């Protein structure tokens, strides 16, 4: 029984103990904090060991890591679609589709009872997002409770939660193979660069995450809680000309202002010859992933979000 189910009067959701946990690094080969941490822990896992828990650090895209590029043929973190996972063609398939199938065999199969309980997928961004946890479902009480725990343990430093449940904008991530997928995104850090403060922050939030799982497995009950999240609304592309070339940059007033309110009429882009383009939406939004280098080719200058408070039921080991 892996989904939460209420079976007592207090509406405490019960989950099986999380025995199998994976830590993915190098899903994007040039996001160095995760690559470095996973390499470190594959050599010496003392730091991540917890009693009664199998924790597997794993480099998901070794070819991309070796070349220090985001991907070789196609973005691994978009590759875990049902279509890809069941595709035939073996060696002829794009490298990352082959990898996705291998990862699904090792840590899945996606959607089955045999899948890993939790996968942490480590990422960096050029955006000024600080420490961000990425949630794929607003109904996953286990993940919500974990994120609540991490936020409190990390305070007063900030760790925010991005919820991407948008039917069109959500994508098939490498972590989606697990029952409880958790994205960890820390920035700003340029691709290919390792910044000590970013590396250490990721290390700390992961430690809190593993502590949570450990406590949960030991039988601790986590009371009902609320978690503030930022829910993805819309993807905003750069203004482009008829040939598809970008004709404006993120406006200096918006650059580095992830999570701050963007009001209708606020400057959003600045053309190369200095003109401002303003946000035309009807209400205030909270932009993030502002000026992520990898998203230029995905037609995304930033995403808009709205603030929401999610309620999570109490949880306890089944």
């Amino acid at each position, binding site marked *: 029984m892996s989904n939460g189910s209420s079976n007592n009067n207090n509406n405490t959701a019960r989950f099986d103990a999380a025995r199998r946990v994976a830590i993915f690094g190098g899903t994007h080969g040039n996001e160095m904090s995760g690559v470095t941490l996973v390499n470190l822990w594959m050599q010496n896992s003392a730091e991540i060991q917890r009693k009664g828990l199998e924790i597997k650090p794993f480099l998901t895209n070794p070819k991309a890591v070796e070349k220090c590029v985001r991907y070789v043929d196609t973005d691994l973190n978009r590759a875990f679609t049902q279509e890809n996972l069941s595709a035939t063609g073996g060696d002829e398939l794009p490298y990352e589709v082959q990898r996705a199938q291998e990862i699904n065999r090792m840590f899945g199969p996606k959607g089955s009872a045999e899948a890993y309980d939790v996968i942490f997928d480590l990422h960096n961004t050029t955006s000024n997002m600080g420490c961000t946890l990425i949630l794929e479902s607003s109904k996953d009480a286990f993940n919500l409770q974990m994120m609540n725990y991490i936020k409190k343990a990390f305070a007063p430093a900030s760790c925010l939660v991005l919820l991407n449940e948008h039917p069109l904008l959500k994508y098939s991530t490498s972590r989606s193979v697990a029952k409880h997928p958790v994205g960890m995104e820390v920035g700003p850090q340029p691709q290919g660069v390792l910044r000590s403060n970013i590396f250490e922050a990721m290390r700390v939030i992961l430690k809190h995450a593993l502590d949570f799982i450990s406590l949960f497995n030991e039988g601790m009950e986590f009371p009902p809680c609320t978690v503030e999240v930022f829910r993805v609304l819309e993807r905003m592309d750069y203004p482009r000309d008829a040939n598809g070339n970008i004709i404006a*940059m993120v406006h200096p007033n918006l650059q580095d202002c992830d999570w701050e309110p963007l009001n209708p009429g606020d400057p959003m882009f600045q053309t190369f010859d200095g003109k401002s383009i303003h946000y035309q939406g009807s209400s205030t939004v909270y932009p993030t992933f502002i000026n992520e280098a990898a998203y230029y080719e995905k037609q995304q200058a930033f995403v808009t979000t709205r603030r929401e408070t999610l309620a999570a039921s109490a949880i306890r080991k089944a």
Partner: protein
Amino acid sequence: MQVDEPVLLPRLSRVAVCGGTHGNELSGVYLVREMLKTEKRKVDGEPASVLMVLSNPRAMQQCSRYVDTDLNRCFTHATLNGPVSEEAPYEIFRARELNALLGPKGSRAAVDLICDLHNTTANMGLSFIAYSDCDWICLHIFRYLQKQMPDTPMRFIHFDVSTKESYSLDSIGKHGFAMEIGPQPHGCVKSNIYTAMKEGVQHMQDWIRCFNSGCVFDGGPVDVFTMVKNVDYPRDGETRSITAAIHPRLQDRDFCLLHPGEPLFQAFSGETIKYKGNEPLYAFFINECAYYEKGIALSLARKKRVTVPSIRVQTDEEERASEQSFASEEEE
């Protein structure tokens, strides 16, 4: 001759501004594209002929630093003129094309000035990088930019490399320098960085126009940082992977004076690794992404004050007069 007589230098008739020498350093890419779109001639003073060049279009298309090999290391005399097979890296061919367009390097036909636009992930503000600490043209342009852009941190870096060994695109011109601006992640354009680069190039063009029309530029002091050595990351003996990151107390502090005993790296084990050199030196290119593969975590420089003389363009008459007197000296 009076001590403060300006040094006379030939006019800068042909100037090139190059972007995309590294295909993922986007401020230069977008700026040159924009300049190509809106090419104008100013009417006051004689127009300098400015060539806008996108140096490495294939790397730009893939948004990578290079396709086969770093273009900005392909401009040594040996690489430009030596034998080349059909299987040679793309950038070797491209370097030869650029040499034909802007050079040939070392010849009278070479352009008078090359300004090569770059970005860095290091927190270097606006830096000029040149092979000479006594090229008065480059130093005067630098002084002029410092005055026009007082809010932009600006430094002049000197790589003491002989003409024979010089390897970068800007070495093709009779005068040349790289305009390096950071911090900007590769593959990204940040509006403040783009704007600084755009203003820098505009001011440079203004200066050139002024110089060519006969203005005298007063001399004065310029602080020059001369590169002394590079420092690599600590690495694992077997795998050669890095075992430490730039120390948080040094990260982003380009051009600070690093004293022996001060923190340099923080090992993944938590240990602080200190700078063990003999003399305090100025750190720059701290944590430049592209230098991991070149074995450079940071570079170290000495600083000195150079006195730049006042200069003026040499008129045609003065040029003829000096050639004649040179010829008559030879006869004697």
